[in-house]
């Protein structure tokens, strides 16, 4: 079974784990990943994947503008707000 690389995965998931968490989660998740090897015994040749169990297709609506949140409503939960904007750390060097 592949050994799950928790550090690399955490970086992809934007989680800054502590060293203790990295060790603990590695053990717990490896256990789960090993259990998933069970699925390898299934013959899935010629089976279509199901992404949506009760599917609907081409669900459309008229391309008409509708009222939405005001700026105040949209910013009401902002951790940091300046004027009508979310204030964030520098994005571009």
């Amino acid at each position, binding site marked *: 079974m*592949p050994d*799950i690389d*928790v550090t690399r*995965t*955490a970086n*992809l*998931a*934007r*989680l*800054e*784990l*502590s060293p203790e*968490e990295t060790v603990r*989660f590695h053990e*717990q*998740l490896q*256990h*789960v*990943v090993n*259990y*998933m090897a*069970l*699925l*390898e015994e*299934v013959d*899935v040749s010629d*089976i*279509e*994947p*199901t*992404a*949506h*169990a*009760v599917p*609907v297709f081409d*669900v459309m*609506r008229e391309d008409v503008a509708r009222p939405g*949140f005001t700026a105040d*409503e*949209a910013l*009401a*939960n*902002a*951790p*940091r707000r300046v004027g009508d904007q*979310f204030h*964030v*750390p*520098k*994005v571009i060097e």
Partner: protein
Amino acid sequence: MDLASLTLTELQGRFRSGAASPTEAVRAVLDSIANKDAAIGGYLSHDAETALREAAQADVSLPLGGIPIAIKDLINVKGQPCSCASKILHGKYTAPYDATVIQRLRAAGAIPLGRTNMDEFAMGSSTENSGLQITRNPHDPSRIPGGSSGGSAAVVAANEAIAALGTDTGGSIRQPASHCGCVGLKPTYGRVSRFGLVAFASSLDQIGPMTKSCEDAARILGVIAGRDSNDSTSLDLPVPDYTATLNDGVKGLRIGLPKEYFIDGIDPAVRDRINAAVETLAAQGAEIREVSLPNTKYAVATYYIIATAEASANLARFDGVRYGHRSTVADTLLSQYTRSREEGFGDEVKRRILLGTYVLSAGYHDAYYVRAQKIRTLVRDDFTRAFAEVDVIASPTSPTAAFRIGENSDDPLHMYLADIFTIAANLSGIPGLSVPCGTVPSDKGTALPVGLQLLGKPMDEATLLRAGNSYEIAGRG
């Protein structure tokens, strides 16, 4: 007469005959919360003032006029907190809009009262993963109420609510209903809008009623079901009157018992209760036969690949930018993301995000995620084949009654495996109902509830509710 101990249907009868008012009912629920919730911990918060104001203005001629309903804390109710039982949102997010189900409840005159506890972001089967507090099973406070809708189940069972909404992604309505001794219904995928529901796994989540009777569940489902232009996965199909056929009985109803479900892992006392329940339905005229669901053994692994993959995408929005916790010790954009999420999320949420990210990552995507989606097709096809021979499939909701708080906290995989009977319904999109079918004794002499699970064809909630109601009535007689 404690109005809080009535069913929704009984309470509605009192309103319409003038024997009680919505204000009196809301007061009774508030009194019950004040007396009981310190010990049970089902509610995270509740707004007494607003509920009383809404009760005073309630129109009891509406389908749910004046009925207070507790709401699981991941469904947006405008002006109320929506924490998902997570530190990443607790005290840091007030809902700016009503979820579609809330809009529909309000249009029917209902009063959303209280935010109920849950496993954080609906990830868990015991409510022990709540980032905020413990909820105790009202039948035995040393035991879990089930999860993830443990708070909703507990408050209904304890008569701290008339009814509640829960959500079900892998069994999270049905299993806590089973453990707490109330009714829980997961509708067909797409039957109820998910707009305003904080998403865990978008192809699996459904909102549903948790109630004291099948009739109450039928009334709530009739109000919340139906196509929503804000949820493109909601089905454009008519909503029947689910109460119309409730009392039609089960004569000739074909009930299948899946041979792969009746295995060694079921507690013998639970098995006895289920067998007795099935015999009751047979005595009322149902035909019992064996069916086979051969891909059952793959359902848990399949689910935990698909659900965690979808969750890893859905929870990416919690980044400290627009709402929720933002770390104060982050100096770059990247560390704002990584630290806010590290500080705000609990362990089980982190584990599932990691697992989901892993199964979607380059090199593993085909081996895990695509393979799981193909096995999902096989699991769904098992039900399609079975439903050609039977109308309803019956099983225990859970292999055991509620375990002790803390008993399984160290072993995530062990916890996942207990979802074996509920999980396939979410993968397949079919509806499922859990109805109380007696109790089993604990080692301390407390009586722990057991749930009978009934699974149905897509869109056939009416048959499930009819069968559940028939069993309920026979149990009372």
